[in-house]
């Protein structure tokens, strides 16, 4: 598929995010399909910051690592990106700035320089150099000028004195002859949405009727918290910043106990602190929904990079034995829909449901179809109860009628083992019945799972994957006869039925970790032999990386 990759290369604090968003949104509104990601250091000012935009005619869901056009605002950052240059890469520089020169590199450099800063000064706003570059790039892609003009008016709304020179800077940028060859894209008006994983998850939570969120800030999970905070007043949501993750998870359990759909967001280290809370939700059979946006670990790891390292930890989270539901969305649309489903499953089965995101999913904007909201997933399964109410009544499917305080029933809940009324017990026969009751829920839960995405299962080599690597897998396998894939987004529990379809194939899992965590999970449920290739350098999985690694391992 025709595509083009632009990298805005600079330092944090140079306004790259604003200009990158404006560039992406202008291209998108003009009919292009867009996929963006950000490569940055864990700091607010300085350090490398690269905003990448991939342009295509129909939606793609992964980044191509090679840059076609680099707009450089920082020599140091650009020097750190040289491995992503290819023969046709064009480097655009401000003529007044400290620049990468031919002497700095050992390949032929294709440089274009323009006096962005001086042009901005002429336009009456010296700080608008990024807007000049924005105009120059957009004119290259024949984007209608009224699109970025409207964005400038929105961004600087109310500040006429800023809008005017910025519009002038934009115009001057449009008039610059960049004369760079770009593919001839056939674009037309489309009906897509441009959103990232944070926005998909946050919207999904609002659509699911989430009314209470508690969290302790931790990159890259913080975005969902701030997204809900920004929408809190309109939708009647309480967003509380807790003193620590232990408080956060206990708050969310309290909120759910009292009857509100509640959410806690975090990343791996914070999730580690929540373990006793996960177990508490299981014992008290309180619905618990957690977002874990993964980053490379152990310990503090790499806060602003991506990984799929928490899977087995999350699947085994909490001490003791109990059912749980774990999803790993593949796109922002998927994040929306699986977040809604996670709330529904948590309520219906009264179990912990964990939404496993990655840094690359939460930070990447993708072109997606409208997420589908279902009002029927708002069903809460809450009963009124009466005088003899038993919160933990033993039932055939293991699900006890759940009442909340404030009604006719007294609702008693205990983290100790308890009898049907919720009173503490050390009667070991009751204990046995309670374990069996809790575990029985798995039978019905398996029936809730959608089948994994499947492609070309007749092929001799089948790739196994999960979560947001789907875009890269799909791009790599498209049109190939020799390779198929099975991709999971509901990653736990696993229905072993898939075994029949995969028996006799060469199976290779492609994951963002060293040990092949999903491979071992699937192997333990099916007994199938599964090989593994893993990416654990903090970068997202791309189609090129899959091809290169499969070749290096002699698999293709």
């Amino acid at each position, binding site marked *: 598929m025709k595509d083009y990759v632009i990298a805005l290369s600079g330092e944090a604090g140079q306004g790259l995010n604003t200009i990158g968003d404006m560039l992406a949104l202008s291209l998108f509104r003009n009919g292009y399909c867009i996929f963006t990601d950000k490569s940055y250091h864990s700091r607010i000012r300085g350090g490398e910051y690269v905003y990448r935009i991939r342009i295509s005619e129909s939606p793609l869901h992964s980044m191509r690592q090679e840059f076609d056009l680099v707009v450089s605002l920082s020599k140091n950052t650009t020097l750190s990106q040289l491995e992503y240059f290819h023969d046709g890469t064009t480097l655009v520089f401000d003529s007044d700035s400290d620049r990468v020169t031919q002497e700095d590199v050992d390949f032929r450099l294709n440089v274009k320089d323009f006096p962005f800063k001086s042009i901005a000064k002429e336009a009456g706003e010296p700080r608008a150099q990024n807007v000049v570059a924005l105009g120059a790039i957009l004119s290259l892609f024949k984007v209608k000028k009224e699109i970025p003009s409207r964005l400038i008016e929105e961004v600087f709304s109310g500040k006429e004195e800023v809008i005017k020179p910025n519009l002038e800077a934009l115009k001057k940028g449009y008039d610059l002859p960049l004369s760079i060859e770009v593919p001839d894209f056939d674009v037309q008006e489309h009906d897509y*949405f*441009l*959103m990232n994983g944070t*926005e998909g998850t946050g*919207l999904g939570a*609002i*659509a*699911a*009727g989430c*009314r*209470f969120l*508690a969290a302790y800030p931790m990159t890259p999970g913080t975005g969902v918290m701030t997204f809900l905070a920004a*929408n*809190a*007043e309109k939708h*009647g*949501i*309480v967003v*509380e910043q*807790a*003193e*620590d993750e*232990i*408080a*956060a998870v*206990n*708050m*969310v*359990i*309290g*909120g759910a*106990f*009292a*009857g*509100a759909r*509640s959410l806690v967001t975090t990343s791996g280290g914070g999730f580690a602190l929540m373990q006793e*809370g996960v177990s*508490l939700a299981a014992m*008290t059979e309180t619905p618990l929904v957690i977002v874990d946006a993964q980053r490379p670990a152990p310990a503090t790891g790499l806060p602003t990079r991506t990984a799929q390292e928490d899977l087995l930890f999350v699947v085994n989270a909490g001490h003791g034995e109990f059912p749980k539901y774990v999803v790993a969305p593949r796109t922002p649309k998927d994040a929306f829909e699986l977040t809604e489903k996670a709330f529904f499953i948590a309520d219906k089965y009264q179990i912990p449901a964990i939404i496993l995101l990655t840094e690359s999913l939460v930070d990447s904007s993708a072109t997606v179809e*409208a*997420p589908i*909201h279902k*009002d029927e997933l*708002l069903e*809460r399964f*809450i009963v009124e109860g009466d005088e003899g109410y038993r919160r933990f009544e033993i039932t055939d499917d293991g699900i006890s009628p759940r009442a*909340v*305080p*404030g009604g*006719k029933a*007294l*609702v*008693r*809940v*205990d*983290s*100790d083992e308890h009898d049907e009324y*919720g*009173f*503490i017990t050390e009667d070991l026969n009751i204990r046995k019945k309670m374990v069996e009751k809790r575990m029985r829920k798995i039978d019905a839960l398996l029936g809730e799972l959608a089948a994994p995405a499947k492609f070309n299962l007749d092929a001799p080599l089948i790739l196994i994957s999960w979560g947001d690597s789907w875009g890269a897998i799909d791009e790599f396998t498209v049109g190939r006869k020799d390779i198929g894939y099975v991709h999971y987004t509901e990653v736990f529990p696993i229905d072993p039925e898939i075994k029949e379809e995969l028996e006799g194939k060469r199976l290779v899992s492609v994951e963002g970790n060293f040990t092949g965590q999903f491979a071992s999970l699937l192997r333990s449920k099916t007994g199938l032999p599964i090989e593994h290739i893993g990416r654990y350098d903090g970068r997202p999985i791309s189609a090129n990386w899959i091809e290169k690694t499969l070749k290096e391992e002699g698999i293709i």
Partner: protein
Amino acid sequence: MSFLREVDPAWCPGCGNFPLRMNLASTLEEMGVDKSHFVMVTGIGQAAKMPHYLDISFFNGLHGRSLPVAFAIKAVNPELTVIAESGDGDMYGEGGNHFIHGIRRNFDVTVLIHDNQIYGLTKGQGSPTTGKGQKTSSQLQGVINEPLNPLALAITMDAAFVGRTFTGDKEHFFKVVSAAINHKGFSVVDIMQPCVTFNKVNTLKFYKERLYDVSEENGNYDPTDKPNALKKALEWGEKIPMGVLYLNEKETYHELHPVLKKKIVLANERKQIDISAEMEAFR
């Protein structure tokens, strides 16, 4: 309406928890608390078993974590009366961080701490309030850490209500605990009680000889006078003050919160949600 449940509590004979249970049940009954809108949240420990011996709704959660749960219950359903109750180890040790931040939040809750200055359920280790030098099963040569002064801490942080009472005085218990429940905001009541099994220092006799009510000392105690309240809170020796030490009428979490001040109940179900306007922002 009785708040007592007919049951045989699993405490040691002579435990201060027995009178505390009776006093609490009669306080709730005399105050006419609406049982259908009452929830007790506890952590873990001998004190935290309390709700099992009362006829109420409760959430008996994790060690040290009663306050985050209580906060969320109150946030989600402001119509509920919420009491968080636990021992000194639970509330001041494992849950110390939540105690500090609970005061900051000033949500409307009554916090009852059974302060027997020792760990009971785990058999006699020192707690955050165990006196310096006291020998315990884990500090065999005596505690070398300074004891926490919960009342002084709460007063310096401008808690809404700070009081102390005693399991051995039913009338005093009613006076302080009912005032705490009626007071809006984060209301702390530290309850002095003996542990007959593991604390041989802070006995019933110890307390009876020392405790006096601040309002009865000279008849003009002003609980809104913060420096004086702090001075009282720091008094611990031949005489130990109790009663309502500090009162602070200030706006609660619910009164200040942009969503909750509209008096909405988050626990109410929704049958339909329209997010089409939010979706449009992503085109």
